[in-house]
């Protein structure tokens, strides 16, 4: 028992006063995850709050991507994955095998590291989600497409070429299209797995501005290897190291007075 508590992360100021009036979207309790024999996540305890940007930082291989993929169970695409512990999403236990993973993914959108639009038209990319969930009415679909593209601040750029192939867009536009695709099913949460790592600085800036905009309506969890990005756009930051959460706190606190020396070493660039 004492061992287990020792391995738990340090939560500086982990009290109700620091997190007032915020609903917890995701509550992770004692999550462990293995890829075959590799212990990738160790005793993760994290609470993600509603309508905030939560950044997950850490060096390569620290488990940050694995963690975010656990939140919509995409991690299960690796056949050897095994988990223990629990994650609740709005009170529902999502790691339960009986939990319908499609329902979860309908409410939790995901944006990937490399833009991955479908090889279809811009319109069909955005309409894909609503269509598979049974929306067939052309007028409604048109509205959804416009609203989603506006939401991802790409409408003005593509409104005259909706029927063109998405692969004609630039990398940054493709990524915003992927965000629009994800908004089209009106999720509550958007998971972003290093969404700007394949983009140039200008496109990165646009995505960052977009994230600020989106957090009014969505809870956003963003994995990033870019600490400045985490500092710029997130409200809370979790620092992962070797599959453990070292520290989780308000972003200001993490970047100005981290409680753990390893966090300080990482954010000051001593490793990673």
């Amino acid at each position: 028992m004492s061992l287990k508590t020792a391995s738990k992360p340090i939560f500086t100021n982990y009290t109700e006063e620091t997190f007032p009036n915020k609903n917890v979207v995701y509550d992770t309790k004692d999550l462990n995850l293995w890829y075959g024999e590799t212990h990738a996540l160790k005793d993760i305890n994290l609470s993600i709050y509603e309508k905030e940007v939560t950044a997950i930082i850490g060096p390569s291989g620290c488990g940050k991507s694995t963690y975010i993929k656990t939140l919509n169970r995409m991690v299960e695409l690796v056949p050897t994955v095994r988990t223990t512990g629990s994650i609740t999403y709005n009170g529902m236990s999502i790691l339960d095998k009986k939990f319908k993973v499609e329902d979860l993914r309908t409410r939790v959108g995901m944006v990937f590291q490399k833009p991955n639009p479908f090889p279809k038209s811009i319109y069909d990319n955005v309409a894909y989600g609503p269509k598979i969930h049974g929306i067939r009415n052309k007028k409604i679909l048109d509205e959804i497409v416009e609203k989603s593209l506006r939401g991802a601040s790409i409408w003005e750029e593509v409104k005259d070429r909706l029927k063109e192939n998405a692969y004609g867009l630039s990398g940054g536009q493709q990524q915003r299209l992927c965000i629009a695709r994800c908004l089209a099913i009106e999720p509550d949460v958007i998971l972003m797995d290093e969404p700007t790592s394949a983009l140039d600085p200008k496109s990165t800036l646009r995505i960052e501005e977009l994230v600020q905009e989106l957090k009014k309506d969505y809870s956003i969890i963003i994995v990033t290897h870019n600490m400045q990005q985490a500092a710029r756009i997130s409200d809370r930051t979790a620092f992962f190291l070797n599959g453990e959460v070292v520290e989780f706190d308000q972003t200001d606190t993490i970047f100005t007075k981290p409680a753990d020396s390893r966090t300080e070493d990482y954010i000051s660039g001593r490793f990673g």
Partner: protein
Amino acid sequence: MTPNGDLNKESSIRHLIDEKKQKRNMSNYTERMIPGLLFLFAAISILTTIGIVYTLLTETISFFKAVPFTEFFTGTVLKPLSQNPEFGVLPLINGTIISSVIAMLVAGPIGIMTAVYLSEYATDKVRRVLKPILEVLAGIPTIVYGFFAFTFVTPVLEKIIPTLEATNILSPGIVMGVMIIPMIASLSEDAMTSVPNAMREGALALGATKLETTFRVVIPAALSGIIASFVLGISRAIGETMIVTIASGSSKNFTFDVTQSMQTMTAYIVEVSGGEAPAGSTIYYSLYAVAMTLFVFTLIMNLLARYISRKFREEY
């Protein structure tokens, strides 16, 4: 290791390279000869094609001197050996199309479903066992398939369809389909496997089920490859000879009743070139006219395939 030692080693390697280079300079002549030589090899297949088309054309022209063009392409009666021979090619075209359609009705769905299973659902273990078995099926000589159709499939079908004739187009059509399955399955599977996983992830992350992902993202993205496999399958069916020769007999019926015997273009060529046609006779020339028709058929198929696959291509 001392820096000095490194230097020595380097200079000795340099020495070796220089030595080799001198030798190579002498063989520069062969180096320059190679492109020409390789061109000659590439030219062989081109020249062969030209030769075949030339022979086909000249002999076909001789045929049309004896038989009017319209009679050949609109005639529904083919009686080359009769006292008053008639040379209507439609029975053969009909037999070819019907057998190919039956084959594709069998091979298309089964081939695609096999490909979907192999590429999207099967575990690595299953795939490693199944694929080689499938490829064995592709390696069976067609004469074996022909006998299989004649001595096994036809009797089995007779139990279901009592009116089935001993030689009929249905049985070889089905068996030809079976023969084409591995080709369609394997090529379609390659096309589906090469669809990037990021596409699947994108769809799954939107809450699509695996089936929805497969049919609405993977298959559309792989469509050009799948169509290509279909066309190759159709070409194979049109050109297939042994199975239909053995199991469909040589009645030149012009009918849509698949329980009857029909002859395909290829089977006609086999029959006529089997010694019954004296060189220079109209029957002899009819061989070339039929072969030319077959050639044009497959050519059109290939052009069509190219057009379709370009039109449906989803670039990623």
